């Protein structure tokens, strides 16, 4: 499955997953929040997080392996990956959410905080890509 059909199908599945987790478990399907809670939440609140992530990794990894999407990027600077990973970890930790927590779930709850967060991270992400590609002239 590729292009917009895969995108729309994938999006609907993500929405259904978020709905299930809220309806059955009463929790928000925000990936950064679920991961960060592994170390910060009370011990009794960690099991479902591990179970959710195990499901995500096993099923997601398997399906991605089977659908064999485009081959991975080559020669993308490792240092950039590490810096970007750090920023994503710090930013989602301080701002309490990422594309799923603020985007899919927060906007789904019509939360003003999440709307502001989404607008801010979309803006700085677009600005970053603009600077990297069109000001510094990197090819990828």
């Amino acid at each position, binding site marked *: 499955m590729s292009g917009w059909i895969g995108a729309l199908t994938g999006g609907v599945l993500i929405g259904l997953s978020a*709905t299930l987790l809220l309806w059955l478990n009463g929790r928000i399907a925000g990936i950064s929040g679920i991961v960060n809670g592994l170390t910060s939440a009370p011990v009794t609140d960690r099991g479902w997080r591990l179970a959710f992530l195990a499901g995500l990794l096993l099923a*997601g*990894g398997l399906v991605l392996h089977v659908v064999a999407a485009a081959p991975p990027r080559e020669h993308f600077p490792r240092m950039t990956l590490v810096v970007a990973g750090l920023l994503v970890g710090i930013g989602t930790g301080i701002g309490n959410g990422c*594309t799923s927590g603020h985007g899919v779930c927060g906007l789904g*709850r019509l939360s003003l905080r999440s709307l502001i967060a989404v607008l*801010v991270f979309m803006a700085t992400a677009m600005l970053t890509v603009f600077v990297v*590609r069109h000001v510094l002239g990197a090819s990828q």
Partner: protein
Amino acid sequence: MKSNWFTAAIAGALFGIGLALSGLTDPRIVQGFLDVSGAFDPTLVFVLGGALGVTVIAFRFVLRLPKPLFDSDFRVPTAQRIDRNLIVGAAIFGIGWGLAGYCPGPVLVGLAAGRPEALYFVPAMLVGGLLAQWLVKRGE
């Protein structure tokens, strides 16, 4: 309160399959979406549209229930204030997202499928999450 592990794993699996089908595990697609002044790639619009199409409607019904099916109460963020942490965190997250084209969910699925870039990004992201916890605690 212990939250049901089995239902959390099912939701996680659905989320992972959705991400694997969506195309968002390919950072080029994500950066293509963020590159508004270049070759704009609308894939992310379909993913977010599909997900929000479900959550905006379904969350309204779910959150009217007295409690979730397998837990004692809904754990939904209660903060209303648009504070500095929200803005600064979202801004930092956006920069990292734009730099490498990965947000937490897709890169975890990529890691599970053995994508080499995820091996650099994910550990850095986890360290960033711990740093954020420390920073937020120190700021309180």
